[in-house]
């Protein structure tokens, strides 16, 4: 009989104990999948929402725009850039935008805020969170001269309603102050109070004209990609394009460091939680394997007496840990699969507890507690649970191999 066969039989000597230990490994898989899966889903949701709010997953912008976003900094020949970028794999959309600060005034009040000029022909609910969040009215048309869509809180502060006029004042490309009249075509409600109270959308063509931009100029190009994890790769690809050579490219975490910081901190907390869960599982396996080694000390002494080497005994106990870990992982997959299926397709609605407009890191969080797992997360979970189990088995295995047979034979 080979050692792995013997090890396999050994783990079923104490069926109940094996089942309890395997269950703790399985429970660890369940917790780890829940933590990681909801993390993967939430972070992706936050990053995608942040990207759709203005800067994209990757931003192409004039050099220095990130630190000093003034309207005299412009991208030239955006049509050529857009063509090249849209031809890259993994790009779902690339849209030109002009962003700037302005003073918005109604008959009653003046409030400072931010405008984003967008092209309604290429921006829609899929790539623009404000359009997705339209709560009243509709988006202006591409050739609209005076259309504006405002955040509902800003509208409330300025006492604006659909069809009402407002005046916005800003500086143009040459630094001159300009004022334009606009009429409210729609209102959006993202759920993020600071956004809803300070942002507006303007038609790109009219804004280009008002600011002294040509139709081939913009503040930035927001690039949206299918898989946010590849933002850095995409940034590098875009940076190597001929048309972007004189500009700066930033991935979402460079363009939105606050959001990146919040996610990084949350991920760290998530890893700590998982580490603690892992420790509990490892302690369970360590306990089981130690008990199993201690109660077979005499038997191990006999096996070494008849010729089993210390290395082979170490291997035997490690193989037992391997089988135990494999059993636990299999059980874990069996109990986790339906739970993950439920979280992936249905989720748990937390809106009654958090409300519909719970924000974190400046972006709206989906009140549905859902999960998704990236392939590397699956490998990470299975790999780390398995490694922990093996690591926990290493000490008992080492202890078994180190004990002289004469000592082991003396134990009853």
């Amino acid at each position: 009989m080979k050692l792995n066969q013997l090890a396999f039989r050994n783990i079923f000597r104490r069926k109940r104990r094996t089942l309890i230990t395997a269950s703790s490994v399985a429970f660890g898989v369940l917790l780890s999948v829940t933590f990681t899966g909801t993390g993967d889903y939430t972070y992706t949701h936050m990053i995608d929402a942040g990207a759709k709010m203005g800067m994209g997953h990757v931003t192409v912008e004039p050099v220095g725009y990130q630190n000093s976003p003034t309207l005299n900094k412009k991208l030239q020949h955006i049509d050529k850039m857009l063509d090249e970028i849209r031809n890259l794999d993994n790009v779902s959309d690339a849209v030109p935008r002009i962003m700037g600060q302005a003073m918005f005034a109604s008959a009653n009040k003046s409030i400072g805020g931010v405008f984003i000029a967008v092209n309604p022909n290429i921006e829609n609910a899929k790539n623009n969170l404000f359009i997705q969040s339209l709560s009243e009215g509709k988006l202006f048309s591409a050739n609209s001269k005076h259309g504006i869509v405002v955040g509902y809180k800003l509208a409330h502060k300025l006492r604006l309603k659909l069809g009402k006029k407002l005046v916005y004042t800003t500086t143009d490309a040459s630094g001159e102050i300009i004022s334009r009249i606009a009429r409210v075509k729609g209102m959006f409600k993202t759920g993020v109070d600071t956004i809803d109270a300070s942002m507006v959308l303007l038609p790109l063509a009219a804004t280009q004209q008002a600011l002294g931009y040509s139709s081939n100029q913009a503040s930035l190009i927001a690039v949206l990609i299918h898989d946010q994890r590849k933002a850095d790769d995409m940034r590098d690809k875009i940076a190597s394009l001929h048309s972007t050579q004189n500009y700066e490219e930033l991935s979402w975490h460079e363009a939105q460091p606050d959001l990146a910081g919040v996610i990084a901190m949350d991920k760290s907390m998530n890893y700590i939680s998982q580490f603690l869960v892992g420790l509990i599982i490892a302690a369970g396996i360590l306990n089981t394997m130690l008990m199993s080694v201690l109660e077979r000390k005499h038997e191990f002494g006999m096996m070494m007496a008849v010729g089993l080497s210390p290395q082979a005994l170490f291997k035997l106990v490690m193989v037992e840990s391997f089988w135990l870990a494999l059993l636990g992982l299999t059980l874990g997959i069996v109990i986790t699969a339906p739970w993950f299926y439920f979280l992936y397709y249905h989720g748990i609605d937390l809106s009654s507890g958090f409300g519909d407009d719970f924000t974190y890191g400046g972006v709206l969080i989906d009140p549905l507690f859902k999960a998704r797992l990236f392939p590397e997360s699956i490998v990470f979970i299975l790999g780390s649970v398995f490694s922990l189990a093996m690591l926990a088995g290493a000490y008992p295995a080492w202890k078994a191999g180190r004990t002289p047979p004469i000592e082991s034979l003396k134990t009853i």
Partner: protein
Amino acid sequence: MNSSPIVRLEHVQKTYIQGKIEVHAINDVSLDIQAGDFAALCGPSGSGKTSLLNLIGGLDVPSAGKVWVDGVDLASLSRSELSEVRKNRIGFVFQAYNLIPVMTAYENAAFVLDLQDVEEKEKHQRVMDTLKAVGLQGLEQRRPDEMSGGQQQRVAIARAIVTRPAIVLADEPTANVDSETAKSLLNMMANLNKQQGITFLFSTHDQHVMDKARRIIQVHDGRIESDSAKSDSAVS
């Protein structure tokens, strides 16, 4: 008698420290065991019989003196090398059978052959022959908990002799079985000794073993008091 002994002990001492007291378990023992011996180390409990077996089996190291087994100086070997010696040159039979409970009689008997990586066909032949020799034909697939004490000890003897070791060290092999079974086991080992030339060294204070042994080595307080061979007619 062979001039080159299977086992040679030269001025062997073994001292244990128990708390602050030195216990001299073995005191200056010199001894040769020849190939084909059917010898018994006899003496009261605590006389040093098992300590001597442990030293000969490479399970323990002497505090002084030398132990050779089949020409190999055990003191010069590492733990792994000692394992090799035990695996290839020594067979062990313990008082409490010490079979592996999750293995069948066949698998227990084949355990050391597996460690030796003996080819499957040869292993099967040797195990079946040995189990037949110890009277366990037909019980190959039984697990230890499905066998009597005597049957389990037969499996242990099969495990010890199946590798054709230079010597079988048997520590009180009849202590846990009734007298009829003890007689039967001893007859079987005596036959194996005669027919296959396997060398046996027992530690015992069982009269049946002493009656059957052809050489009696009396041990007392860690010293050999007497070492006497019996004529064939004196062996019962």
